[in-house]
């Protein structure tokens, strides 16, 4: 009697549990450990960079802190780079990635983008004023520094034929740019804008004369298996709430970014969808 009763109870729990959204391995691990590990950039001001004391600060670490607060766990920031962020997520070294990740179909096959997207950026070129670059086509055959792992490296090389010199991280690429190993730096337009505004004297000999290309939204990512689980749901709710409440717009202002049409659009859509 006792045995079959326990069996029936167990069966009931399992079936009821099955009606709720698919169990999330990652969410269980986060709740049990009491910490969420979020991968962020450390060389991309103002989204993720180091302050003079060596701590990781920026818009994305702040977003990570908000996620941790909403989940009721502690935050552990894991520094990632463009060249290894996807692998880190796939291997489970991080539970969540908020690292200026552009959205494209290739990446959709291997990781789970949380929609709605939280920002949008475009390809831009920071180039020496005396290099004489007036249009994108002028970079053909010239040495252009870039960061390994960026999704627009291949696109730009195929469209305009520069000689791309890709370094493992933004810091090395910027060093090479300053010491004259290349004439320009191919990166996201927000990075260039923040560099020029944060350190105008250092970059006095450089400019961004070309129009921003290939506008691409950025997304928060979780492991592909987690997209349809309770974890994925919770992330989606959080991002929607950020847009609706204007949290992202206020963050944008706080970190001195140029106000973007994208965020205003997203907020309007989130409010309308309520």
């Amino acid at each position: 009697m006792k045995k079959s009763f326990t069996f029936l109870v167990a069966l009931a729990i399992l079936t009821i549990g099955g009606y709720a959204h698919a169990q999330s391995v990652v969410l269980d691990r986060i709740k049990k450990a009491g910490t969420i590990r979020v991968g962020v950039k450390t060389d991309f001001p103002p989204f993720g960079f180091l302050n003079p004391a060596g701590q990781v600060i920026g818009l994305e670490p702040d977003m990570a802190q908000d996620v941790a607060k909403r989940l009721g766990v502690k935050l552990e920031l894991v520094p990632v780079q463009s060249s290894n962020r996807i692998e880190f997520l796939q291997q489970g070294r991080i539970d969540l990635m908020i690292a200026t990740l552009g959205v494209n179909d290739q990446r959709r096959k291997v990781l789970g983008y949380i929609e709605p997207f939280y920002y949008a950026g475009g390809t831009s070129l920071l180039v020496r004023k005396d290099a004489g670059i007036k249009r994108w086509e002028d970079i053909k055959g010239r040495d252009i520094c870039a960061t390994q792992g960026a999704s627009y490296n291949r696109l730009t090389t195929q469209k305009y034929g520069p000689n791309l010199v890709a370094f493992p991280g933004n810091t090395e690429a910027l060093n090479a740019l300053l010491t004259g190993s290349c004439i320009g730096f191919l990166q996201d337009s927000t990075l260039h804008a923040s560099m020029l505004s944060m350190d105008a004297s250092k970059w006095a000999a450089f400019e961004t004369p070309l129009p921003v290309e290939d506008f691409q939204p950025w997304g928060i990512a979780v492991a592909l298996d987690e997209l349809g689980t309770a974890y994925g749901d919770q992330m989606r709710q959080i991002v929607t709430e950020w847009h609706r409440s204007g949290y992202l717009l206020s963050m944008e202002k706080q970190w001195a970014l140029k106000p973007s049409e994208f965020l205003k659009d997203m907020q309007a859509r989130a409010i309308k969808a309520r």
Partner: protein
Amino acid sequence: METVSELFRTLNTTYGFDLSIFYDSYDADLFTRGMYFTALLSAASVFGSLFLGVIGAYLQFNGGVVARKFVSAYIQVFRNTPPLIQLYFFFFSLGPSLTSATGMSEPILSNVAWAIVSLTLYAGAFNIEVFRSGVEAVPAATIEAADSLGLSKRQTFLQIILPLAFRISLPGLNNNLVNLIKTTTNAYAIAVPELLYGASQVWSDKLNALEMMIVLLIVYTAVIGLFTWMMGCIERNLAVPGWGRA
């Protein structure tokens, strides 16, 4: 050739094993360029470091006090510091200082050139030590015999000691040169487009890190296997009859 690329394309779509360097021309170019630059870096630094090794061994044998101290200091510096740090120092620190000192608008040496310089100096230090062990293994009686025949110190070194020392130190030299070829992957950090750089460009675009890693391991195993086989042939051809295992 079309059938080969079709085969690998199907391998990707059916089994998810993406060897894009065989069906995508952009990736294939990156990889071939990588092989060329790895070959260039390896060949240039192997010959450069051999040359440095011989010079250093001679200076240690016959040089004055100053020359010996200089060689000793050189070995200490380049053996005690990690090769990647040496590379960063040359490219990011010494290079720009020299460029601004000479007042040139463009860097005096490209990143490939600095990589070759750095690797040559690094391996040269190890080679000097290997040659020194070979030089010291030449029997004192042989050197005295050469001296009694009226050969100058330089003639003794070039005609008696060096040939024998070279043959004796071949196994150790082989080790050093294999290490050098593998160390050329450090140049990836200063964006020299060698094999690891090319592979990383491919996998950050196609997201096939596992497949590219396997390809890299196979390529390096093959290249170094070929190199050690070649050195083995040299060893057998140069062996002195009755000395060692010959």
